[in-house]
Each structure stands twice: as structure tokens, then as C-alpha cells.
């Protein structure tokens, strides 16, 4: 096995050769880091990735041959950018137009690169690439410093919750590997990171073209004592799930091979679960205990994110696709109203008032959205706007036809993210990140309005005044139609309805599924003021 030991020698760069079994054992321990790269046409991003792939020896020989043929002219030169470009249209136009996924491995780790263009549709593509990444590499041209686009890339990395950002200060060869240039940029970049809320920023001086500090340490930068790019990629911690991250299991499917087994299958979004744990199924609110965690490879003593499992429960409770299982004492918000950041991904603009479909974990619901404001991606200042166009980012208020089990995106990328789908074209038009949900003190959604059915016009006008001064949106209607009430309640109004036939006031609310009206009478009080105050106290409980 001379060939094998050569290869393994090669992989270990001269250390003791090991057998294929040892190689596989080491291989099996590797974890997976997904990172995204952003940069524009000229800043050498494709060259950097090509260099990373080539120097880490994961470029296969026949691919190198194909590239050398495509880039006729310089017969022996390898065009690193061509290694990473994919489609015909791009090779013809010389630009990268979509997100491309590349793979490479070192003896320490496996990597997935989501390579995104800095050219047209940059925001859409970068957001897409960043959504699954643990780390982002932002390219900065050493000669040009922090441009608008570096700021934009940093902002998107922060928006998409990427914990580790690397500023690759490229083309150091063109500034004579100047320490001063690096130091200045290093300080500017850390200032920017603080402003953008980036949790960790690492600035590395490189030359993608010549290979300095990409894989091999440069002799041109003796003043730099940090890691090379690859060293950093190999050592950065992956998805540090907080030890106390809340357990979330969105149910994808109920597995029922026979009458005795009812398994709830899904991929754990966060946290850890163990048989015996007390759980709550949402939105129903029914509780039980975990009976078992089942996989093809046997039952598990515990399971954690992002494992795909099926769990069984001690009690027969009705759970279906789209529901979520959580620990009973650490459940997410259940709400159909929330605020979010929204990135618009489609050529056709966001249309206010239109019904979109919203996919969140394993459920798709109808949604109405209102744009609160748009963010100027260059200055990061809010701008007045009711619409969003392709590549624009806005703050939105969302209402959905059914309640969702939500966590803020900053805490949970799975239960805090959603996509919007145009119901007519089925295109994916938006990507959203949940900020917060509107909740009452019991953690329930408070967004539906309340209706008061009142005996007499006088009580209506007294309450109208008191409620308006308390900041409520009040609507008075004489309509007695339940469907009219439903839509007003769904819209979140406090509705006052005078009724001559009514001897006693009633409080009417929407059932959690928003289809039924719940009615309850309020005790009668003598005197207008006493009656009004009693009703206001009752309303406080509703809110």
C-alpha cells in the first residue's frame, strides 16, 4: 500500500502515516462548518475561494484540466476564479449570478461554502447564503478600505444572526504588506462591528492571489501574529448551542405504523430532550411526558439539536404536522401577530394588503403584512415606505391566519425564521426574522380585539371616551352580524356594539382558532359609572 501511505503522508504533512482505518476513525470525528463569502466582482472573492480549495488540495485534477482549457490564453496558469464559477451564462458574462455551494475538508474539519456574488441581486443572494452559515467572510480591498458594500455585508451577517465574521483584508500585496494599512482597517472594522451588533470579528491580512495567510502563513507579515484564514476556519466553535437552550421540536409528521405506536417526527430545532421530560404540545396546550425517543438506530437516552428523531408520549394527545413540542416550563410564544425584519427577494414588489402565504417550521398559513419602515441599507437609517422592492429590507408587522409557535430569531434561527410565498405564482418572495411577539402576562397572544355588547347608547359613549384615552383603537358598530364582529376582532379593535334587546352586557372574544366567538356575560351594576368601571376591569383581564 505504498500509494495509500503516500496519500496519508501527504494529508499529515510528514507526520507518522496511519492506516485507512485510522484515517476513517479521525474522519468520523470531524464536524461541519458552514460559511458564507461575500464580496463584489473586483475584490477577489472567487480567487480567494479558489485559493482555499486549491491550497487545501481538494481540487480534483480533472477539474483543474477543464479550467485550464476554458481559460485558453495562459496555458499553464490556473484561473482560481474559474474554479468556482458554475453556469454557462456566468462563464459567458464573467460574473457569478447565484449562490453556489462548495465543499472541502482539512484533516480537522469539513466545510461547506455558500459562495454568494457581490454583483446584482447581492442582498437576496447574500441573505440566502447567510441563512445557513455559522461564519461569514467579508472581503475588504486593502487599497480601498471599508466601502459601502463592506458595511452592507456586515449588516446582513448581523441581521442573519451569524456569530463569527471574518474580515479578509485582501490584496495586501498591492499595499506592500503594510502593517499601518492593516492596523487602520482593523480598528475601523471593529468600530463597524460594534455598531452593527456583530458578536465576534476577526481581521486577517491576506493576498488571495499569492496565497499569503490564506492557508500558509505569510513571510511578508511578520507583524501579524493572528491565525491564517484556514487556521481560523478550523478552530472557530460551531453553533455553540447554549447549554440551557430551550427544547423545540417542530412536528413534521406523525408516524403511525400500527395502533400501538404514535411517533411525532421532526428535527430538533434547539435544546435537549430526555425520556420522562414534561412537555407541552402547542398550540393545543396539552401536556404529557416523553415516553421514548426513537430512531432507526435504536432508542436514545437523550437527543439534541439538530438530530432528526421521533418521540412518543405517555398520553394520547392530538398532535399533527405544524404543531410544536416544548418543555412545559420553557415554551415559546404562541401568537398570530408579531414584528419582524423582512428581506424582499422577488422582482415584483411587496403589495400592501395582499394575502401572502407564510411558511414557518412545518406549517404554512395565510399572512397579512404592513411595512413599518424600510431600512436604507447604505446608511442603515429607517425610511418611510409602505412597500418593499427586490433586495430591500424592512421592518414589518405580521398577522397570520393561525397562531405560530415563535421565538425571537436572535435566540432561535429555526423557530424565529419564515419565508413568504406568493399564492398566485408560488414564488418565494420574502425572508423574515421574528423580533418579538405581542403577548399578555400569561404568555398568550393578545392581539385579537375584544367586543362589548352593551345595553344602551349611553354606556357606549362613556366607554368609548375612557377606552380612547387609554390608547385603544375603538370601533362602534350597530351591526349584529357575527362575521362582521369576527373580522373586527381579528383586526385587533376594541368593538362597542349597542343593543336594545340586551339586558346584560356581554364580553365577546375570538376563540384561539379565530373561527368561533366566545361570549360571557358581565355582572350588572347599578349606576352608569359603576357599570362602566366594572366593564373596564373586565376588559383589563381580557387584555
Amino acid at each position, binding site marked *: 500500500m505504498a500509494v495509500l501511505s503516500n496519500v496519508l503522508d501527504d494529508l499529515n504533512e510528514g507526520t507518522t502515516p496511519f492506516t485507512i482505518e485510522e484515517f476513517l476513525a479521525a474522519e468520523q470525528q470531524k464536524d461541519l462548518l458552514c460559511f458564507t463569502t461575500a464580496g463584489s466582482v473586483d475584490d477577489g472573492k472567487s480567487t480567494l475561494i479558489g485559493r482555499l480549495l486549491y491550497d487545501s488540495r481538494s481540487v480534483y485534477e480533472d477539474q483543474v484540466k477543464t479550467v485550464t482549457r476554458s481559460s485558453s490564453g495562459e496555458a499553464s496558469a490556473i484561473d482560481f476564479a474559474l474554479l468556482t464559477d458554475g453556469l454557462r451564462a456566468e462563464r459567458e458574462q464573467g460574473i457569478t449570478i447565484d449562490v453556489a455551494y462548495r465543499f472541502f475538508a482539512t484533516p480537522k474539519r469539513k466545510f461547506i461554502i455558500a459562495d454568494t456574488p457581490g454583483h446584482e441581486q447581492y442582498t437576496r443572494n447574500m441573505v440566502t447564503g447567510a441563512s445557513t452559515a455559522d461564519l461569514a467572510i467579508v472581503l475588504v480591498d486593502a487599497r480601498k478600505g471599508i466601502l459601502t458594500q463592506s458595511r452592507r455585508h456586515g449588516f446582513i451577517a448581523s441581521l442573519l444572526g451569524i456569530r463569527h465574521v471574518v474580515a479578509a483584508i485582501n490584496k495586501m500585496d498591492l499595499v506592500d504588506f503594510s502593517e499601518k494599512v492593516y492596523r487602520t482597517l482593523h480598528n475601523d472594522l471593529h468600530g463597524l462591528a460594534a455598531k452593527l451588533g456583530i458578536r465576534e470579528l476577526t481581521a486577517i491580512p491576506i493576498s488571495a492571489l499569492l496565497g499569503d495567510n490564506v492557508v500558509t502563513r505569510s513571510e511578508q507579515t511578520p507583524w501579524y501574529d493572528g491565525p491564517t484564514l484556514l487556521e481560523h476556519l478550523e478552530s472557530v466553535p460551531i453553533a455553540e448551542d447554549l447549554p440551557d437552550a430551550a427544547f423545540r421540536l417542530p412536528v413534521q*409528521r406523525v408516524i403511525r405504523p400500527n395502533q400501538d405506536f404514535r411517533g411525532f417526527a421532526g428535527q430538533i430545532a434547539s435544546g*435537549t430532550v430526555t425520556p420522562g421530560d414534561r412537555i407541552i404540545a402547542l398550540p393545543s396546550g396539552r401536556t404529557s411526558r416523553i415516553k421514548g425517543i426513537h430512531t432507526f438506530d435504536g432508542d436514545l437516552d437523550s437527543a439534541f439539536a439538530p438530530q432528526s428523531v421521533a418521540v412518543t408520549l405517555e398520553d394520547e394527545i392530538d398532535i399533527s404536522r405544524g404543531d410544536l413540542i416544548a418543555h412545559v416550563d420553557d415554551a415559546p410564544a404562541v401568537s398570530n401577530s408579531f414584528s419582524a425584519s423582512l428581506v424582499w427577494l422577488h422582482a415584483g414588489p411587496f403589495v400592501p394588503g395582499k394575502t401572502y402565504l407564510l411558511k414557518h417550521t412545518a406549517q404554512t398559513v395565510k399572512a397579512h403584512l404592513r411595512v413599518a419602515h424600510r431600512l436604507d441599507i447604505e446608511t442603515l437609517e429607517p425610511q418611510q415606505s409602505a412597500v418593499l422592492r427586490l433586495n430591500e429590507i424592512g421592518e414589518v408587522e405580521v398577522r397570520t391566519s393561525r397562531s405560530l409557535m415563535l421565538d425571537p430569531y436572535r435566540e432561535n434561527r429555526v423557530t424565529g425564521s419564515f419565508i413568504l410565498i406568493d399564492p398566485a405564482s408560488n414564488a418565494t418572495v420574502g425572508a423574515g426574522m421574528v423580533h418579538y411577539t405581542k403577548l399578555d402576562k400569561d404568555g398568550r397572544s393578545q392581539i385579537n380585539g375584544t367586543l362589548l355588547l352593551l345595553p344602551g347608547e349611553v354606556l357606549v359613549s362613556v366607554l368609548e371616551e375612557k377606552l380612547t384615552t387609554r390608547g385603544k383603537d375603538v370601533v362602534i358598530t350597530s351591526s349584529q352580524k357575527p362575521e362582521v364582529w369576527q373580522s373586527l376582532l381579528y383586526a385587533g379593535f376594541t368593538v362597542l356594539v349597542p343593543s336594545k334587546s340586551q339586558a346584560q352586557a356581554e364580553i365577546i372574544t375570538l376563540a384561539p382558532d379565530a373561527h368561533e366567538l366566545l361570549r360571557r356575560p358581565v355582572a350588572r351594576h347599578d349606576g352608569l359609572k359603576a357599570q362602566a368601571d366594572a366593564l373596564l376591569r373586565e376588559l383589563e383581564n381580557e387584555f
Partner: protein
Amino acid sequence: MSTAVYDSPETITASRARLTHLKALEAESIHIIREVAAEFQRPVMLYSIGKDSSVMLRLAQKAFYPGTIPFPLLHIDTGYKFREMIEFRDNYTRELGLNLLVWRNEEAIANGANPITLGTQRCCGYLKTQALLDGLRAHGFDAAFGGARRDEERSRAKERIFSFRDANGQWDPKNQRPELWNLYNGRIGPGESIRVFPLSNWTELDIWHYIHLENIPIIPLYFAQERRMLVRGDSLIPIEQPFVKGLPGEEQWVRCRLRSLGCSPCTGAIRSDADTVPKIIAELISFRSSERANRIIDHDQDGSMEIKKREGYF
């Protein structure tokens, strides 16, 4: 009591546990397979008998365990597949109790379509692409799993996990849906369909490593043994079809194996001593030559895989 629980080392280990890359890939693939089974009316899994299909099939078993796979398998048979492939297919699917469907372009086969007279592009067009589109349409399948990976070929690197195909089964690289997080948009109109690639993020090494760890049965053509081949330059061409004829002296016994499985006239073998999965892996990492290099069809012209995909090929 609760203190004891929180202090227990097991609890701490569990909360800090991390998945290895293969377990992370497995979990992602299972999630994808379950999404498709839940969101589509009539999904099907394309089964090509190769190593990737074998892994995909195992992942489907895992996704629905202890239940059974809730969709059929479909094999597109060109009539030129290796005899061993058909035997393996029939035995293995019977053993697992799976619902196997086979589709062939009988008209083209009856007309004697072959790569020598038609050229590889037109032959693939009739026997693979056309047969696939006809088979999917005849059964009314709205989602089809394929075992393609992004690391296989350059045009695959930008492929979505849910790849949208229009009513003609065609792929428009400029009109694909953005894919964020693990939220897949499977909504389609009448006649449209989705090709689903649950192995998108696996590499060739991952596939072999998983086969090794999971003891997944694979077809013996992958393992080296003495085989009768046409030796032409660097190429080893299997002799199964009467139209594959060699010049004098070209036909030889060679110790070789197949790196990827296709039709016998168009799938070259490689000289190899690798007769176990670990040896195949050792060979793989020594090669620095991508697995598709021995597929004659991909090298018809620069970017030929992309052209095939636009027309409806996987």
C-alpha cells in the same frame, strides 16, 4: 433532587454534545425527506441502484422508522444497464419490501437506440431524459427525489435542494426559488413538479464513509475484480452490448472496478485493487480526480451537464 440532576456529568455532556458531520448531514437529509412526504400528493424516489441511491434509500428508511417508506421507487431503465445492476435492484428492493416501479422508453429501445449510432447526447435524450419525463408524467408524480450532490459537477453547485421544474419538466437556472434556512417551498401549479436532492450537501467521500459505517449493501461492480474489458488508451470500456466491439488486442482481462454506475457502453471502469469499502476510500483520496471524469457523456462539450439539466435530465 434537582441539584443532583443538574450536576450529573451526563446532563452536561448531553447539552454540549455536537453532531459529527455525517450525523449532521443525515439529520438534514431526513428532515428533507419527511418534508416532501408531508407536502406532496405523489412523491417518488428515483432509484438508480448506485451508491448515492443506496444511501438515499437508507435515509428514507430512517426517516419513517418504525413505519415504512410511504412512496414508491422508480428506476429508469435504458436497457443498457449492467446485468448485475438489475439483479441487485430486484433482490434488494424485494428484501426490503419496497414498491419498485420501472420505466423504459420501449419505443426507442425497440428502434435500437444506442450511443454508437445516435451519439451519446441523443441516446441519453431518448433513453434517460425522455423516459424519466414520460415515467413521471404517466404516474402523475409531483415530486421526485434524486441522489445528485452539489460536489459532483460544476452546474450542480448552484442546484437547490427543492429544484423547480416547469410543466415540461425543464429546469431554468435563472428561475429557481431562493432557499433559506431549512424552509423549503414545495408549492407547485398543475403539471409542475419539484426534484428534490436530499444528498445535496454530501461529498463523494461522505457517501462512501456512510456506506462503510452503516454497512449499506452496494452492488459488487464497485469492487475490484478481474473483468473482461476493452482497453483503449486510458479507457476501460465494459463489454456487455454487441455493438461495443474492440479492435484486435483491445479485449483484455483487467483488474478493475466502476467508480460510478451508468449504462455499460458509456461507463468506463478504472484499474483498481480496491475490493473493500475502506480500500475504495483510500483510492478515492489518492486520486484527486473527480468521479465523473470516467463518464463519457459529461465531456461531450463544455457545460454539457447543464444542457442536459435544462432539458429535464437529473
